[in-house]
């Protein structure tokens, strides 16, 4: 095995990841000035003993929002994470399949950058097939529960359930003479969000992690529902507000689903023995199972790391076990540290059904589906967690998002002949989500508003162009670091710590 130059925190060769994105960042151009605060507000900040931390609002508690909020809180910034429905906090909205496009090492890299508690949540809730198939499967519900627990425990991070419908800079607010303070202590914060229940919450900066919910629509068969993911209420007004502040948008779609009831062992067998041709090829309908028993993702990564330990590395003369420490620009990969970072499963209450070890009993299946349009196609059937009793069906790569345009087809229930198992109906029909994403200065997130405005508004995750959960995770962490850096620029002049 060759040393991978993208291994983070961890490598034989210089790690460019920390530096690379920054060169593209607006911060290098002109400092983003959070400038229009009144002198009195500045005085307020600087009053003796009045040292305080900046506050950042993270709007949206999906994959990237949680990663961003946790990273910010971990770096000493006060964060308010606003989500429309706190029960769904941290829950991936588009199925349980996570494509490991960057290889397993890339995954370790992404996970390593996460705050430990959030990393543990992802590892606890994920299961994987074998090393060869570049996917893992996340128990979305378990991830949500553990993420919420992790975030609640982070000092400096506050959760708030609210539907954000408006966002403004404080100077606009004053122009409209809507009151001078937007903070409990009477201060003025540069960014203010308004909620559907009439709250105004102020902060030094806002990060939008709103997925596809801007003008989001979910198309299921003949129906169009509002929302950035199936079944949730949509924030009206936010797009208009962003437009007023100078943000620009582009369309994006995403195909999701369908889900089927998880077959029991007998059903699997029955489905596989159906209508097999003499050569063993399936001829019509049904599903051809290639079942792979899964194991916790953590176990897979640890095993890969062990293997790496046993394999000498040519590029660094087998000095791999030396450490984790900085060596000039180089950081060496320390498999043992990586393994430590991977940690061990969190202890759950005994009576909790999604206890992490349960996840080992799941199966991944390959199905040959016969669609209404054309011949058979290969699909992946993935367990959607231990308590849902459902499997997610992704048609090869088609569950990945596409650029805007009419391409791609709506994988609704009518699209597939859903006879995969036992003639039963899909438990959740496939659907297409279409919404607007924000144009930014970097791929997968960055500054959306703020170059010339008094308020800085960042965007991360899918709303910032990220595709896939892992990209969203990485984007959340990266944007958090950028926000922190920009805020630090002002720290001295404003007396923040």
């Amino acid at each position, binding site marked *: 095995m060759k040393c991978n130059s993208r291994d983070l925190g961890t490598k034989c060769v210089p790690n460019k990841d920390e530096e690379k994105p920054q060169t593209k960042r607006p911060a290098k151009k002109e400092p983003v000035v959070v400038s229009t605060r009144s002198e009195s507000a500045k005085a307020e900040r600087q009053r003796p003993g009045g040292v305080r931390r900046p506050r950042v609002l993270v709007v949206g508690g999906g994959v990237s929002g949680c990663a961003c909020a946790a990273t910010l809180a971990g770096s000493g910034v006060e964060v308010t994470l606003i989500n429309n429905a706190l029960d769904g906090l941290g829950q991936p909205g588009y199925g349980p399949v996570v494509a490991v496009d960057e290889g397993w090492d890339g995954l370790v890299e992404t996970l390593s950058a996460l705050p430990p508690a959030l990393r543990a949540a992802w590892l606890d809730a994920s299961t994987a097939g074998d090393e060869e198939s570049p996917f893992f499967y996340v128990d979305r519900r378990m991830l949500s529960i553990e993420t919420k627990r992790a975030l609640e425990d982070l000092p400096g991070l506050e959760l708030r359930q609210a539907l954000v419908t408006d966002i403004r800079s404080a100077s606009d607010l004053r122009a409209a003479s809507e009151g001078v303070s937007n903070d409990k202590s009477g201060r003025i914060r540069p960014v203010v969000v308004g909620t559907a*229940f009439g709250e105004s919450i102020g902060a030094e900066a806002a990060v939008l992690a709103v997925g596809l919910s801007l003008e989001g629509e979910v198309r299921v068969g003949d*129906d169009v529902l509002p929302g950035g993911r199936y079944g949730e209420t949509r924030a009206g007004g936010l797009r208009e507000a962003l437009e007023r502040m100078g943000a620009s948008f582009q369309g994006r779609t995403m195909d999701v689903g369908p889900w089927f009831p998880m077959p029991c062992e007998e059903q699997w067998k029955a489905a596989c023995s159906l209508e097999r041709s003499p050569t063993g090829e399936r001829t019509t309908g049904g599903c051809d199972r290639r079942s792979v028993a899964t194991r916790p993702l953590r176990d897979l990564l640890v095993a890969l790391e062990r293997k790496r330990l046993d394999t000498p590395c040519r590029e660094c003369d087998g000095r791999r076990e030396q450490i984790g420490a900085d060596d000039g620009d180089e950081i060496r990969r320390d498999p043992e540290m990586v393994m430590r970072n991977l940690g061990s499963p969190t202890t759950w209450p005994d009576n909790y059904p999604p206890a992490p070890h349960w996840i080992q009993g799941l199966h991944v299946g390959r199905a040959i589906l016969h669609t209404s349009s054309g011949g058979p196609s290969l699909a992946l059937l993935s367990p959607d967690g231990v*308590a849902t009793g459902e499997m997610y069906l992704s048609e090869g790569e088609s569950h990945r998002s596409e650029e805007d345009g009419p391409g791609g087809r709506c994988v609704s229930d009518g699209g597939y*002949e859903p006879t995969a198992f036992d003639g039963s109906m899909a438990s959740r029909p496939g659907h297409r989500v279409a919404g607007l994403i924000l144009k930014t200065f970097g791929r997968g997130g960055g500054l959306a508003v703020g170059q010339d405005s008094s308020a800085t508004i960042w965007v991360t995750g899918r709303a910032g162009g990220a595709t896939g959960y892992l990209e969203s995770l990485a984007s959340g962490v990266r944007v958090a670091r950028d926000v922190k850096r920009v805020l630090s620029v002002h720290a001295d002049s404003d007396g923040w710590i």
Partner: protein
Amino acid sequence: MPRGEWTYDVVVVGGGHAGCEAALAAARMGCRTAMVTLHLDNIALMPCNPAIGGVGKGQLTREIDALGGEQGRNADRAFIQLKMLNTSKGPAVRALRAQADKRLYEDWMKVVLSRTPNLDLLQGEVASLDVSRETIRSVRLADGRCVRCRAAVLATGTFLRGKVVVGDRSYPAGRVGELPARRLSASLLAAGIELDRFQSATPPRVDGATIDADRMVVQQGDSQPLSFSHWRVPALRRQVPCYLTHTTPVTHEVVSAHLHLSPLKSGSVSGKGPRYCPSIDRKLINFPEKERHPVFVEPEGVTTREMYLQGLTTSLPVFVQEKIIHATPGLEKARLIRPGYAVEYDYLPPQQLTLGLESKTVKGLFSAGQVNGTSGYEEAAAQGLVAGINAALYAQDEPPFFLRRDQAYIGVLIDDLVTKGVDEPYRMFTSRAEYRLLLRHDNAAERLSHLGHKLGLISAEQLVIVEKKQQGLAEFTDLLDTVQVRACEDSNRVLEELGTMPLEESQSAAKLLRRPQVTYEDVIRLVGSSDRERISQAPPEVVEQLEIQARYEGYIRRQMSEIRHQRATETLGIPADFDYWSLQGLTYEAKDKMSRIRPATLGQASRVPGVSPADVSVLLIHLHRSQLQRSVEMPEMSFE
């Protein structure tokens, strides 16, 4: 089969507490059942109080369990605190109450649902019902799928044209964050079903790490093993405490100062709310003289720090909610996580339903839960179970299943709903039952499990458990009758210690147990050593019943004879097509009300509001005279 068209025996619309029970009951009774819900991630949610049971409600849960429902079992799997309430009071008001881990409760229910044969879970919005010749034919989903069915159960909770409200703001949602059912109401109206508006509200949640527990009273769970379900062995589990605080005049000042912002005053909520679960704003309007109201601070689960503030229900603007919380002792620094809010929704005035919860307008269409104008998870589940059973029976061409008022709280609940209707969300109380000494939480299995068995919801093995308990009860009742306590010095000393009269001559243990001061444990001390071992072998649930039987024998007997006395008129059937208008001697109001409600029995007729005893006599005479009477087939009581 055309594409996008599917056939089931029973379709259940909604996946809350009513929907889950209905779907499980129908599937377990052998019907091919589909549960259609807006979102499969939101099954069996507890969007308000994270608790199951309590006085009145706990009895419902026990009855659900005795009939083969799931709520009790699921509460046992998910509880994080379990408590027997009112142990110092009479047996009629004793009840279990569980604090549940919400997520755990949902997860377990989903596991149970997904492993139940005959049951498919489908995600989608039901947009309309196909009704022809006054009979349900299919439900149509918004995405274009059509699900044919023989029977359908509506269990839509607060989702029909739901709207959430805080202060003067509102937006369409079934619960905060969830899309409402946008279209079904129109289809129901078109089918001739009446709808009205109700509202309900939930209190704010705060961060448990920011409360000052030292300033509140800690409330622990029971330290002895308990269980809701008759079919599970009671187990002890590490339990989580709740806390008790109260509002103060300062809290009340805050509320009063902002009362003009309340949706109740501003008119942004038009529906009627629950009087028995009032918001703090309403409490202040209704009880201006009270200086404090209790506030229970309850954990929402073991994996979250969120705490529920029972008693601070409000839909005042969010900044007022924060002020109210901070003006409450122990919550001065509490950080608001979820603002409280009100939800307004369409419900079906339940007088349109039969005692089997079937619509009188559309055959094969049943409804259950909040959509029938009730509140509470237990009330919902109880109706869900009955509606599911009746939907299955309907699909199998079997006669419907009812429970009488003297049989179960479930009978009381449904009879109240369909006979009297509701003018606010209905909640169960023990005072609603006239035979509450018979409808106890401890004898639910004896009252109902044989009925569950007949329906196919209770297995033979489960029935054996109940029979064993009954045998044990009979055995020990006989034993107590035969065992004598001698009037010796030792026994009299014990009796004096207990503060009761000494014995002058030997007496049976049964008689001694009738004395209010003497418990079963005392009896064990009093009897001779030869009998002591046998007597002390009674299992705890038998002991409980022995004590109740002994102490309340007279009352129980009186209630039983009352029931027997009224049985004849109570169960006297009235034909469904009876012409009240042609019957002379009835008041206009009685004719009008009864021809709309169409009571199934004379007993039910007597409870229709506006029907006087004189009207009942007229009806009785007529029914006898015209030989129209027939006894409606109703399940027998087991303990007679």
